């Protein structure tokens, strides 16, 4: 680039139609300075050393590459199933065309249908990436020849055919060229037949090529020509590959031609029709498979093609993953699952997400925005060197020890919102710490470190919590309770996710979930926690609680034999939970006193766990009696919510009391059970509450989060959501924003003459209707300019006057001084000759007067000149007006018209 530009700079100016030039600095040394570290500059008033800049720069690359590889892999995996589906379609179609004939011989239509895969990609600007993936997958089988057609290349049939032929034959053409050089025979032939060479858009070329290809693969023994040998070896490879790939169709691997039409909507419909009918005509000789990418819907496809073309297609449909799912997965992978990595704050995240949801559904643009955020974070934040590493690692120690005082000062400023919040929160409890934080750098350093570790732990916990929340969401059928990952993450950034209405609702509803499901849910929570070692450590207390609950559950599961009884047992299990708490134990005591059967329990009273277990066992037996009754009355209702069951049993107990079937004991037990149930549900609920409260917090609660989170969205907005219209409008309406001058105000109502000509013309333009009379415009323009000119003239006059006055004054002063001098002289030479001197003065005075008169006369001359100038001004105004409106025309505001003489058309609707 540099070399090119230095060769001939004048060349760069040649194309004046282009409005923008980039001239690289010619001085190579300077140039190096600019692009060193990709323009990462010294921050903190240039006190940052090179070392830190490099660190930031390197980190940026490291982090970004990290994220990028993650996303790429993710996208690849996500599209894998669709890709494989299409691949299978392509490979099955190869054989099907053979097999179908033999199997479905019942009906043979006079034409052959072209197998067609319609790929619905959604309006997804990123489909290129997926298409590439599909194509490369199809190409893994060497007998597949793929031609990718894009609408921009395919203007007419000739062109399209040429592209198809070139793409399909590409590899072979190269081979041929080698052969031509090798074998002189071919060379001669080519010379003779040159004129006969088929036009490069002749479908017969394809036909001949394909026949040759097939012929080569069939004749294995013929080794006369070098071409055959080469192709043969290739063919063998093909066969080998085929053997590896799919053992079913090794020997008969047929060459297939695949046409991939990427953007169906943009194609000329007539062209596609012709293409389809041409290839259906050749379908006997050429096994063509069409793949068509459709962004919209099947309906458009049906509308665009006529029956005659549609009937030639044998359609199968494929759906690519929609970008919503992609973005969900990306967010989970990049933001939730990674611990020590770059994070987005709420504002930029919201901006990117809004852009995605509202405007483009483009994963690629989301990724671009993300990249920009990463870049800007490291570019602008000197403390970014502290982010994206495990704060407990030794590397962190090194970085911490290298931090300068300046960094720490910056930390206070940069992390101001969270730091202030933190200071305020601890102000009352430990004022000493506050003082130290503000004064002692070492304390601050430690505090930052601690803050980072807290954040680190929070991320670990959040990951687990988020996963569990997703699990919890899965428990509900209704879409009301479902929110996508991206929306949930947005909530979590906005406020503590636990406090959000959505999560609160979920937790509340968890009381009504059927028993086995909630149990399973608790198990998955445990599993999730234990998956991660760090999380396990951090959430130890939750694990123990969970273990307790689950342990009891399991015990009762073992006891159960019948399905219906299991349900009851579950209830008992709940009781078991309740028993664990001391409060419950007292109940147990009561129970013991009441129950005749539970004498034994008194022995185990003091040993908490054992006794509770025993209790449960006992209770089981007792419950079994109850169960029998309930089952009898309830009939068969195996799967009900706990709540329902308990209510039922409760009402039943009332009912049974009337029928006198219940003993006192069972009555008491039932009441007990109900109470037990309530506490049990409460306990589970409490656990869920506590768990989510601890894990799903908001990042803003943590001090120093600004180090890790990128929180600014204005830069993103500026860079990615340009507002061309309003930018032009402000530039022309308020030029002082750009020119940094003080001469004009922001007042919309007055068109000040001090504005730039184009701006004046533009402001007048805003006042006009659809058609603008050029003369009126010119007059208005002239009036404003005249003010300006008049003013400047006045100024000039005033200046002139002032100058004149000054001259006058000076002259008078001079005269006076002269007089004085003369008087002095007089004093000296009084005696000499008074009369003579007086005469001299008179003469001088007269002379002065004469001069003044001369001045006056010259003023009159000026006025005459002014009239001349007026005419001259008229011309000047005209010139300036023409320049201004031609500039407006260049910007696209006006256009000449034939509708009315001397008028131009307004092309925009004025102000935004």
């Amino acid at each position, binding site marked *: 680039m540099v070399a090119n530009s230095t060769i001939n700079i004048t060349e760069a100016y040649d194309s004046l139609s282009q409005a923008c030039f980039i001239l690289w600095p010619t001085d190579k040394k300077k140039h190096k300075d600019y692009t060193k570290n990709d323009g990462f500059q010294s921050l903190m008033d240039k006190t940052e050393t090179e070392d830190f800049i490099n660190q930031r720069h390197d980190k940026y690359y490291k982090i970004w590459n990290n994220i990028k590889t993650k996303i790429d892999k993710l996208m690849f995996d996500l599209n894998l199933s669709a890709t494989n589906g299409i691949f299978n379609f392509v490979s099955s179609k190869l054989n099907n065309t053979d097999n179908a004939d033999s199997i479905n011989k019942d009906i043979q239509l006079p034409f052959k249908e072209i197998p067609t895969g319609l790929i619905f990609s959604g309006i997804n600007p990123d489909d290129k990436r997926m298409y590439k993936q599909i194509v490369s997958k199809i190409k893994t089988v060497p007998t597949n020849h793929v031609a990718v057609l894009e609408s921009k290349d395919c203007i007419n049939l000739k062109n399209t055919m040429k592209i198809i032929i070139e793409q399909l034959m590409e590899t072979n053409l190269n081979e041929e060229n080698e052969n031509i050089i090798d074998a002189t025979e071919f060379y001669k032939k080519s010379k003779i037949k040159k004129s006969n060479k088929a036009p490069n858009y002749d479908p017969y070329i394809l036909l*001949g090529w394909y026949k040759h290809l097939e012929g080569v693969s069939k004749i294995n023994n013929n080794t006369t020509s070098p071409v055959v040998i080469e192709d043969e070896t290739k063919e063998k490879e093909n066969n080998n590959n085929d053997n590896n790939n799919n053992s079913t169709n090794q020997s008969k691997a047929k060459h297939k031609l695949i046409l991939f039409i990427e953007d169906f909507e943009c194609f000329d419909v007539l062209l596609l029709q012709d293409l389809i009918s041409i290839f259906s005509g050749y379908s006997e000789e050429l096994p063509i498979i069409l793949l068509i990418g459709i962004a919209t819907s099947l309906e458009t496809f049906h509308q665009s093609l006529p029956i005659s073309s549609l009937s030639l297609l044998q359609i199968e449909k494929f759906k690519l993953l929609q970008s919503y799912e992609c973005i969900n997965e990306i967010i989970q992978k990049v933001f939730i699952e990674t611990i020590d990595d770059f994070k987005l704050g709420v504002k930029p995240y919201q901006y990117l997400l809004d852009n995605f949801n509202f405007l483009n559904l483009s994963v690629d643009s989301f990724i671009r925005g993300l990249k920009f955020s990463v870049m800007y974070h490291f570019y602008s934040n000197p403390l970014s060197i502290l982010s994206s590493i495990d704060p407990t690692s030794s590397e962190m120690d090194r970085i911490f020890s290298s931090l300068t005082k300046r960094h720490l000062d910056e930390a206070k400023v940069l992390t101001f919102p969270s730091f202030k919040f933190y200071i305020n929160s601890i102000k009352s409890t430990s004022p000493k710490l506050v003082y130290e934080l503000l004064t002692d750098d070492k304390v601050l350093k430690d505090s930052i470190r601690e803050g980072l570790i807290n954040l680190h732990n929070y991320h670990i916990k959040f990951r687990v919590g988020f996963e569990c929340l997703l699990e919890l969401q899965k428990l509900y059928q209704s879409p009301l309770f479902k929110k996508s990952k991206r929306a949930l993450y947005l909530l979590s950034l906005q406020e503590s996710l636990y406090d959000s209405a959505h999560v609160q609702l979920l937790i509340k509803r968890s009381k009504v979930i059927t028993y086995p499901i909630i149990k399973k849910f608790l198990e998955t929570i445990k599993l999730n926690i234990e998956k991660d070692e760090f999380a396990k450590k951090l959430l130890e207390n939750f694990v123990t609680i969970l273990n307790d609950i689950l342990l009891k559950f399991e015990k009762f599961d073992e006891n159960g034999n019948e399905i219906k009884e299991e349900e009851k047992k579950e209830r008992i299990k709940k009781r078991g939970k309740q028993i664990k708490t001391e409060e419950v134990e007292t109940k147990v005591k009561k129970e013991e006193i009441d129950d005749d059967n539970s004498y034994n329990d008194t022995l185990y009273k003091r040993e908490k766990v054992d006794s509770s277990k025993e209790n449960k066992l006992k209770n089981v037996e007792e419950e079994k009696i109850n169960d029998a009754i309930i089952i009898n009355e309830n009939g068969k209702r195996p799967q009900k919510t706990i709540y329902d069951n308990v209510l039922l049993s409760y009402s039943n107990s009332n009912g049974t009391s009337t029928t006198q079937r219940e003993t006192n004991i069972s009555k008491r037990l039932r009441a007990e059970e109900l109470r037990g149930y309530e506490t049990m549900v409460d306990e589970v609920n409490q656990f869920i509450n506590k768990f989510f409260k601890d894990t799903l917090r908001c990042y803003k609660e943590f001090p120093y989060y600004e180090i890790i989170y990128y929180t600014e969205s204005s830069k993103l907005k500026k860079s990615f959501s340009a507002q061309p219209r309003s930018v032009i409008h402000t530039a022309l309406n308020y030029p002082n924003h750009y020119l940094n001058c003080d001469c004009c105000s922001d007042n919309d109502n007055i068109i000040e003459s001090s504005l730039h000509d184009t701006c004046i013309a533009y402001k007048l333009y805003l006042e006009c209707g659809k058609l603008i009379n050029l003369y009126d415009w010119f007059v208005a323009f002239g009036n404003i300019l005249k003010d300006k000119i008049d003013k400047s003239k006045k100024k000039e006059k005033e200046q002139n006057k002032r100058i004149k006055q000054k001259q006058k004054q000076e002259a008078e002063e001079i005269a006076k001084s002269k007089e004085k001098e003369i008087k002095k002289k007089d004093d000296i030479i009084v005696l000499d000759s008074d009369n003579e001197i007086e005469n001299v003065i008179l003469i001088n005075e007269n002379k002065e007067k004469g001069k003044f008169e001369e001045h006056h006369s010259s003023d009159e001359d000026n006025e005459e000149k002014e009239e001349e100038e007026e005419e001259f001004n008229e011309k000047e105004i005209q010139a300036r007006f023409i320049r201004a409106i031609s500039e407006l025309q260049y910007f696209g505001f006006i256009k000449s018209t034939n509708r009315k003489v001397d008028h131009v058309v307004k*092309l925009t609707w004025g102000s935004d």
Partner: protein
Amino acid sequence: MEIQNEIDEQFEILRKNYPGRELQITRLQDLIGDIHQVVPPSIFIFGDSATGKTSIVRSIFSKYKENASFINCIDCYTPRLLFEHCLNKLSGYIPNPDNLYSNYAHCETISEFIHFLTEICDKNKNEDEELTGRYLIFDNAERLRETNPLLLSALLRVPEITNLNITIILISNIVWEKFRSQTGMLEPILLQFPSYSKSEILNIMIRDCPKDENKNFYYIFIELLYDVFNKPCRNLNELRHMAMLLYPKYIEPIQEGKATRNDTVKLFKHIEIYFKQALDKLYLRNISSSEWKNKSFEEYVEPTVNSDIRFELPYYTKFLLIASYLASYNPPRYDLRFFSKSSENKRRKSRKQEDVSGSKKSQQLYGPKVFPMERMLAIFYSIIDDPIEGTIDINRQIASLKTLKLLIKVGNTDVLNQMKCKCNVNYEFIQYLSKSVHFDISRYLYEAV
């Protein structure tokens, strides 16, 4: 002589294979059946699609070897391709890697073509002394009119100019009168392939009967099929396609043991639902044979209605499309009434809308009207609830709507001038869209549909 025998045989076979076309085949045989006879200069074969024109002619000339060239004019979209393919076929020349994909000759004009044509014919004449006919067949001959207006007349005069025993056979869906616009046309012999009658169609379709199937049983099926489909569709190919798709479904109950071959009524009832489905999607080739097989019965009974039109758009883009729909179907003078936000206007609106609904000359029937972009944008900003800035993203979305052909640009290509568009979606789709964004479109439409 060998060739001649084969040809005679072929005609016999054709007569058997194409019931209802005996007359035409005989006529063809009379005209061109003898390869060593003097042939007529030109024959024009016409008739509806799927009446056997192409397949009969093609199979006749498959036996003529290199004396005939069968050319599909859609393939040969330039005169050069047409000529060169003709020459290749007549000379038996095939482009392949060994001859570096060359054609018989480089031939771009009709005079060159005639030169090479005589060259080929002379060459072959030396070998066998008999008089042999040459046949140039052009399928989809209506395409010949498009490339060069004089090409067709020139081609028709080729036998005359070359003085060779050549016949030109044109096959087309269109009647000869439509070809006659140019001067210098020679009148060819006309040969019509009329549409098949019901019995003929059934006769042909019975040939598709699977080998292991009772012909009478199959005949009942195809007769039923014909009766159902005959109104919207008489295209033989389409009917055969339908028969192929539906027959497996028809015999399903028999295979499952639920019915016997004699339970015609039961079978009718069973197949009815599939017929209905197929009628809806006739011609669309919506469902390929494989998919048809895999679909369960329930999916036929309750098909997801809008599944064909559904696809995702970004939120604002949906509103852009709705706005352009409104701009296309609402008269501009009512814009103030619908889109101004003051309450006074709304009152007036509700009163007037009743008047409007009284006169139901539907706006919808006139199709979308052209609207300037600015008007659409103004409507867009008015119907969207949240205040948004006019960023480049909105413009980009308009552009992408244009590439998706949901908006169609109308009129001059002047870049500076205001862009004018039409909205290219139907009411059903816009309704689906507005539902998805909770927007009540009927409140803003000039005519509630």
